[in-house]
Each structure stands twice: as C-alpha cells, then as structure tokens.
C-alpha cells in the first residue's frame, strides 16, 4: 500500500515536471526540433537576445507586471482598509464586484474590458493593458491584505486614537507598517498573475504594445521555435526564484 502511494505521488509529480524539464533541456539542445540530444549549446539564448521583437514583448510584459503589481497592491491596500474599517453605502456592492471579478472566467473579463475600452475610446495598448491587469489582480491583493488586517490587535488602533493620532497618522504609522509582509506577498502574487495572464492580454492589447504571451502564441502556433525554449527556461527560473523568495518571507513571518 505504501509502495502504491509512493508510485502514485511519483507519477503525478512526473507528469507535472516532465514538460517543464523537456523544455529546459531543449533550451540547451543543439537539435532545433528537440527530437534528440545533439549536444549542449547557448545558441538559442543568443538567438533569443537577438530577436528584437521578442525582447521588446518580454520588456513590455515585465513593465506591465511591475506597474500592475505595484498599483494593484496600493489600491488593494486602501480597498482592504476601506472595506474593513469603514461602513459606507455600496460596501456590499464593492465586495460583490470583487468576488465576481475573482470568480468570472478570464475570457468573460477579457471581452468585458475590450468592450469598455472601445466604448470609452481608449486605444488598445499600454494603458488598456495596465488598467485590466490592475483590475483582475485587485480581488487577490484585497484578499491577501484583508487576511492580514483581520489578524490585527484592535487595541493598537484604539491606543493610537486615544493618544491623539489622526486617521491619516493611524494609517501611515500603525496600519501600514504592520501590513508590510502582506503587502510584499500580495505584490508577488499580483506580479505572477500579471505575468501568467494569456487570455485577458490577448484581447486588450494592440499591435503597438505586444506582450509575451501573444508573441509566444503567434511564434509557436506554426511550429517549434528554439528561442522560445530559451525564454521559457528563463521564465521558469524566474518563477522558481519568486517562489523561493516568497517562501523565505513566509518563513520569516512565522518566526
């Protein structure tokens, strides 16, 4: 029974890691089509760096991910505080909308954003992409930060108020510093979500601002592209680094 269980876990992990491993190996494989191992090379990495449109798309994706993660974390922090501390008209509506945005399939959000930008006359490119990325990350950052806010000792806030702190000071000097770990993990979450998105990006950006998923999609649709393997290997390493960083930070918080 124990052997069976071991085989089962090994099987699942084999299935999860096999495609990624094949991809990484092929990034260094001289054989263009990855059919067999022909020897070690860095050729595809050079090809990747020389492919200007691919590099531009990668740069755009990272810029969007950084901007979206930063703004989604900032707005998410304010939203989490607002929804947690204040009782106001429309609070339930906001929570409901946030829930809907989180649960709705990406394809629905994608076309809804597209219809919005076209109706508002916002051209498809950097801004449309940024607004949509912030919006679909927002429910997740709010959730992460709210979780942390609910762990607070409310006496700390009462003490600050009794000592004469204004609302602005309470936010800046008490709540914000205590929220820091949650802010960092929500930034990382939003960064990954933004970088991982394929569906929404393919609807709300135009030819003027090509991003990675679109570029990769159009490149691999017709066949194998070894420079995509190289780029994918780099992306996998990047996400691995992010996982390690976030795990280290969660570890720190526990101490």
């Amino acid at each position: 029974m124990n052997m069976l269980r071991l085989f089962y876990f090994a099987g699942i992990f084999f299935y999860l890691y096999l495609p990624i491993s094949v991809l990484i190996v092929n990034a260094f494989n001289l054989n263009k089509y990855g059919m067999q191992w022909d020897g070690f090379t860095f050729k595809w990495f050079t090809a990747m760096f020389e492919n200007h449109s691919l590099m531009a798309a990668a740069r755009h994706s990272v810029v969007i991910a950084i901007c979206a993660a930063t703004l989604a974390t900032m707005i998410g922090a304010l939203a989490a505080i607002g929804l947690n501390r204040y009782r106001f008209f429309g609070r339930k509506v906001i929570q409901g909308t946030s829930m809907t945005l989180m649960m709705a399939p990406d394809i629905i959000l994608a076309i809804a954003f597209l219809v919005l930008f076209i109706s508002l006359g916002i051209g498809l490119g950097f801004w449309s992409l940024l607004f949509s990325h912030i919006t679909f990350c927002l429910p997740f950052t709010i959730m992460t930060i709210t979780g942390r806010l609910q762990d607070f000792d409310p006496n700390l806030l009462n003490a600050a108020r009794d000592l004469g702190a204004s609302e602005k000071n309470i936010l800046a000097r008490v709540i914000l510093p205590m929220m820091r770990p949650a802010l960092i993990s929500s930034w990382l979450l939003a960064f990954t979500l933004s970088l991982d998105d394929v569906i929404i990006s393919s609807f709300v950006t135009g030819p003027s601002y090509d991003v990675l998923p679109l570029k990769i999609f159009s490149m691999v649709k017709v066949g194998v592209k070894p420079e995509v393997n190289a780029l994918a290997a780099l992306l996998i390493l990047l996400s691995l680094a992010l996982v390690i960083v976030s795990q280290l930070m969660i570890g720190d918080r526990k101490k």
Partner: protein
Amino acid sequence: MKIADKTRFCIILLISGWFILFGVTPLLLLVMTSFLTMDPADLVKFSFTLNAYSQLFIEPGYIIIFIRSVKLALTTTLLCLGLGYPFAWYTARMPPKWRTSVLILLMIPFWTNSLVRTYAMRMVLGTHGILNKALLSLGLINTPLKIMYTDYAVMAGLFYLMLPFMVLPLYATIEKLNFQLVEAARDLGAGAVSAFTKIIFPLTLPGIMAGCIMVFVPTMGLFYVASLLGGARQLLVGNLIQQQFLNARNWPLGSATSIVLIIFMAVMLIGYGLLLHRFSRGEE
C-alpha cells in the same frame, strides 16, 4: 475630525470609483452589447434585438460547440477529481513538515506561465515527442501514437493546468476533517467503502464542489490550450468567443455566448451556495 473624514472620503471614493468603472461598467456593457445588432462597418448598431441569442440557440453548430465544450470540461474536471482527491487526501494525512513541501512542489509549475506550459506539453505529446520515443523504445508500440491535435491532447493539457485548482480546495477541507469520525465508523464495523461513502465523502463534499467549480468554469474559456494542442476545430466555448470577437467581428454573438456562459456559471455557484447552506445547518 475633518482630516479624518477627508482621508476616509478619498479612500472610499477611489475604491468605489475603480470598481464601478472597471468592474461593474464593463459587465453591464457586455450585457448591453449582446442585445445590439452586428454591423460590419462599425462593429455594432444601436438597435435592440434578440438575434444573437436566437442564433445561439437555433443554429446547431453553436449548440454542438457548447455540448462538446461541456463534455471536455466535465471530463477534465472528473480527471482532476479522480487523481486529485487521493493526492489531497494523502497529503493532508502526512506529517505537517512534509505537507508544505508537497504543496510547494505542486505549486511550482503553477507559477510558470500557462502558455509556456501548454507549449511544453506539445513537446511531450508530439509525434517525435518524448512520450512516443519512450513507448517506441520500450517496444509497447510500433508506430508513433497520434496524440497531438486530438481531444486527448487537449484533455492532457487542461488536466496539467487545472490540477492544483482541484487539489487545493480538497486539501483545505480534508485537512479540517475530524478523522475520529472515520475511526469511530471503522470501529463500529464500517468497511473502507462505506466509511468513505457515508462519512468521508459527505464531509468533504464542499471541497469537492469548490474544486469542481474552480476547474470546470475556467476550463471552458481556455481557448489557447485548444488552439495549441487540439485540431483546427473549435473545441471550447472560449474559442467560439475569441473567434467572434477577434476574427468574425460579431460582437453581439460573442457577448451573448459569454452571457450564456455566465448564467451557466451562476447556476453552478448558486447550487454550491445552497449546498453549503444545507451543510452548515446540518452541523448545528
């Protein structure tokens, strides 16, 4: 007190504004678009019609895509449930320090771009892919299997992408399960099967439902998996929507399709809500 009100006011204004502009408005516009008339020159004409919906329900082609899509998503969901349940179960029963490692190992591929992973799947399943190579050299087959560009390839890809969405909610419920109940049932003479069907299954049903919804709903929209791994046929509702919006430029039809998808999803969520409600009442 005035400054306090100002800070408060700004925060509420910002978040309400953002959610109304980028959350509520797009969805309302989508509903509106589905009732408009298609106009080749100008995208849409502002005249109310139910054409898009009647087209969707009358033309057999669309119904076939919907049924095929539901079938594919359902198979993927069951595959994830069947293979994910034991995974979640055994992980939840491991010593705590092992659990985190297993969950992190499960999540690492999940942090990588899903398009990249779908593309990687192609290298495994292709005619000259590693799977065919392995099977050929083991002598299990004589000619390479044609998996790529079939529904099986799409299913393999969807399962690969969606498995964590099934395992995580299952794990969360199983971890909270009171195992003494299972032991009590066994002590009272229940076999492994009846302990599962009478105790474990009903108690973990909320996790099962949550996992199934989290897999089933997004799966219908993952058009790029179907385009990269499946054939030229339209497999998923997502492909249909994408094509109506980006190629055929029939926005009303694309919007109507997505509204039907939303209603489908809402019915499932309401069902889940009712079940949870019954469940929490049962516990009291």
